[in-house]
């Protein structure tokens, strides 16, 4: 089926769907069949250009498509049925919305004549998904179907990327309509601004050149802007000599081994990154959005700084933090201008930054990610460090679930490249990592894909082990098993008098047997001395692996900016005694959460 013969051809709605996917470059589709999408599944059966990955739950399809998208830079595509198929996809859609992941979700719908009649497996899909998508469509005419799907890909992948839903009633899938190939006819109302205002960029460069205590604070927008943006960011750091920190979503855009790297910032970020943010005089925020986990207490956020904010979304600028210079545009294009203007206009005097770097070195010396090693019990931080050491020289992709393990992974696993780190940042979706790893592995068949998981999160989407086995996707699920919802417990210790209400899992499955039941490979390790061998075994097994890594049960994640405090009020690991933890937030604070 070449493009040439598809010029304005008569087809069934279902054929149009498959042809439109092919013409938009789709190679893999994550989905789950059901009554309202059977005609599309029938078409999928009769072609071999698109590989369909059968998940075990629609949420899994969504996260797998997100992982696929995040690791490739292309749109992730999912196909689900009406009613429960669509509602199960909602968590993944909101997750993709908050983390700006391009996701195209096709949903079946009951026939148009039954819409509104409370038909079997009917739900108001466009109504339910309106607030959790960038845009959505209900297609009632097969002649609109091709153009709508093309537009859906355009909207999902351009501007600030995000999820879209195309809801297709079953009668539209059967009916004949005219197929039109993708063409550039963007709708007048949707024209994302990608080129930054040159005058403002000039002003930004001038402000940066005058800085004595500058900092670059970058985020997922740099990763979304493509590999070239990360390259330009590295160039800008080299040119300016500025220290750089990143949000959770932006890890890898600047290499963790880079000299100017301060580590992640925010609630569980490094001491040096947060202190430098607090004390800086010029902050350059590129593709990040001043999330509340980043800023801490807003009225004490970087109080003596001039702030520059580069973002493709105008509504991100001045939303949480008022900035002095807002530049609307694609991070890659703005970085290109910045680098060019800096070269042309600025004679870099990196010596001027020496006092600032000396100060940063003093903060670094606090070694805020330090932890007490234990010869008998695996410390969770140690497990991440060993995993890093044993996988860093391979073609490795890391996904995570949500919780303490996620923060330890962000702190201690060094990312050298963008698109290697898939995590649920904005929505904080427990259960993201395992299906995301599946999606990554489908896109990168020969790579090593590891889901750094927690014992609680991983049970939320464990069923996708079955999909991984079916598609011979040898994902490695590295579970830091402490039998608690660790982050919940940590907050209960901080805020609720150590009353550990329902955060302990008394009946934990045997993960080794579970892996075997799925047809995967199970490994258990509870001794620090055995850890390296066990990790190497995990890497060498050519099957999906559940690695039950038994770690210290009560370890907590530090450093931490306690509730409602400022960057310079971090709770550091060596100060985090039981008493300090118990008193970190007072009674008045507890009421406010």
């Amino acid at each position: 089926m070449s493009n040439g013969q598809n010029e304005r051809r008569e087809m069934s709605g279902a054929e149009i769907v498959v042809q439109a996917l092919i013409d938009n470059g789709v190679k893999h589709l994550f989905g789950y069949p059901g009554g309202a999408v059977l005609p599309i599944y029938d078409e999928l059966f009769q072609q071999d250009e698109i590989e369909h990955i059968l998940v075990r739950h629609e949420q899994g399809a969504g996260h797998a498509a997100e992982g696929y998208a995040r690791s490739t830079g292309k749109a992730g595509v999912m196909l689900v049925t009406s009613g429960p198929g669509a509602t199960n996809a909602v968590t993944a859609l909101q997750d993709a919305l908050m983390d700006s992941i391009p996701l195209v979700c096709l949903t079946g719908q009951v026939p148009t004549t039954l819409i509104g009649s409370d038909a079997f497996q009917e739900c108001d899909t466009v109504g339910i998904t309106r607030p959790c998508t960038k845009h959505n469509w209900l297609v009632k005419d097969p002649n609109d179907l091709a153009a709508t799907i093309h537009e859906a890909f355009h909207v999902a992948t351009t501007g600030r990327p995000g999820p879209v839903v195309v809801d297709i009633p079953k009668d539209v899938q059967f009916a004949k309509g005219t197929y039109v190939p993708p063409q550039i006819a963007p709708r007048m109302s949707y024209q994302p601004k990608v080129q930054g205002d040159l005058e403002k960029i000039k002003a930004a460069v001038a402000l940066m050149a005058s800085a004595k205590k500058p900092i670059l604070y970058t985020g997922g927008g740099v990763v979304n802007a493509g590999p070239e943006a990360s390259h330009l960011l590295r160039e800008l750091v080299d040119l300016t000599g500025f220290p750089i920190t990143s949000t959770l979503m932006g890890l890898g855009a600047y290499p963790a081994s880079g000299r100017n790297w301060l580590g992640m910032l925010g609630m569980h970020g490094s001491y040096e990154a947060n202190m430098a943010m607090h004390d800086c005089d010029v902050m350059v925020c590129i593709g990040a959005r001043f999330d509340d986990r980043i800023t801490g207490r807003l009225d004490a956020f970087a109080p003596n700084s001039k702030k520059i904010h580069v973002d493709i979304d105008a509504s991100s600028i001045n939303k949480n933090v008022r900035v002095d210079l807002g530049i609307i545009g694609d991070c890659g294009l703005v970085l290109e201008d910045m680098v060019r203007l800096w070269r042309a206009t600025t004679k870099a005097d990196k010596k001027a930054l020496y006092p600032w770097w000396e100060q940063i070195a003093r903060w670094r010396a606090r070694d805020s990610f330090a932890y007490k090693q234990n010869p008998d019990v695996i410390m969770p931080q140690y497990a991440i460090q060993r995993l890093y050491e044993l996988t860093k020289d391979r073609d490795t992709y890391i996904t995570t679930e949500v919780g303490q393990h996620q923060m330890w992974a962000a702190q201690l696993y060094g990312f050298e490249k963008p698109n290697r780190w898939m995590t649920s940042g904005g929505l904080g979706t427990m259960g993201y990592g395992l299906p995301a790893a599946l999606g990554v592995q489908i896109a990168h068949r020969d790579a090593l894909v590891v889901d750094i998981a927690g014992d609680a999160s991983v049970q939320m989407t464990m069923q996708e082990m079955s999909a991984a086995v079916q598609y011979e996707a040898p994902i490695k699920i590295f579970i830091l098993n402490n039998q608690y919802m660790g982050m919940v417990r940590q907050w209960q210790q901080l805020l609720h008098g150590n009353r550990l209400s329902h955060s302990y899992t008394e009946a934990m499955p045997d993960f080794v047997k579970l892996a075997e039941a799925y047809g995967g490979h199970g490994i258990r390790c509870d001794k620090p001395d055995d850890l390296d061998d066990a990790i190497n075994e995990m890497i060498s097994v050519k099957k999906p692996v559940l690695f039950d890594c038994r770690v210290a049960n009560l370890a907590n994640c530090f450093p931490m900016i306690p509730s409602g405090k400022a960057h310079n009020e971090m709770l550091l690991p060596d100060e985090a005694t039981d008493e300090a933890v118990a008193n970190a937030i007072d009674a008045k604070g507890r009421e406010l959460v």
Partner: protein
Amino acid sequence: MNPHLQPTGSAYFIAKETQVPERHTLSVLVDNEPGVLARVIGLFSGRGYNIESLTVSETEHEKHLSRITIVTSGTSHVLEQIKHQLERIVPVHGVVDLTVRAGELGQERPLERELALVKVAGTGDNRVEALRLADAFRASVIDANTEHFIFEITGKGSKVDQFIAIMRPLGLVEICRTGVAAMNRGPESM
């Protein structure tokens, strides 16, 4: 830890709002397609913005364009957010804060008009008085029999408010208001 710093509370830091909310009128030009009003209203309810009045109708049939007029209130910061959030909606062509634009044009405020239908039932003196006052307000009678009038009144919201208030003791039984339609003075378009 710096024990001298008082903990302020929550993981979600809630800053005290010190700015005074202002009332602004926004014009939003949108593609007239299914669900577009739901997108706009959903944005306001989802993000906790206020809607004091909302008017919508197709204004350019051939281009399938509708114009939505929204009266909202918020601090200048919130109003800026509302504008940018509206602009993010895919079928939105443009958003003009008419109140801000009026200021830029050196005018006090945008032109705003509202239409109301007001039904007054009664007999005797009240009926005579209602008709006399309606005349003073330049409200016209669009339906009547011996026991009621329906008045049509057009004007600023405050004029309509006032008219309704004085009709209340005279047998007011039903009110329907359109909400505000607004544009800026002068030759320029939005």
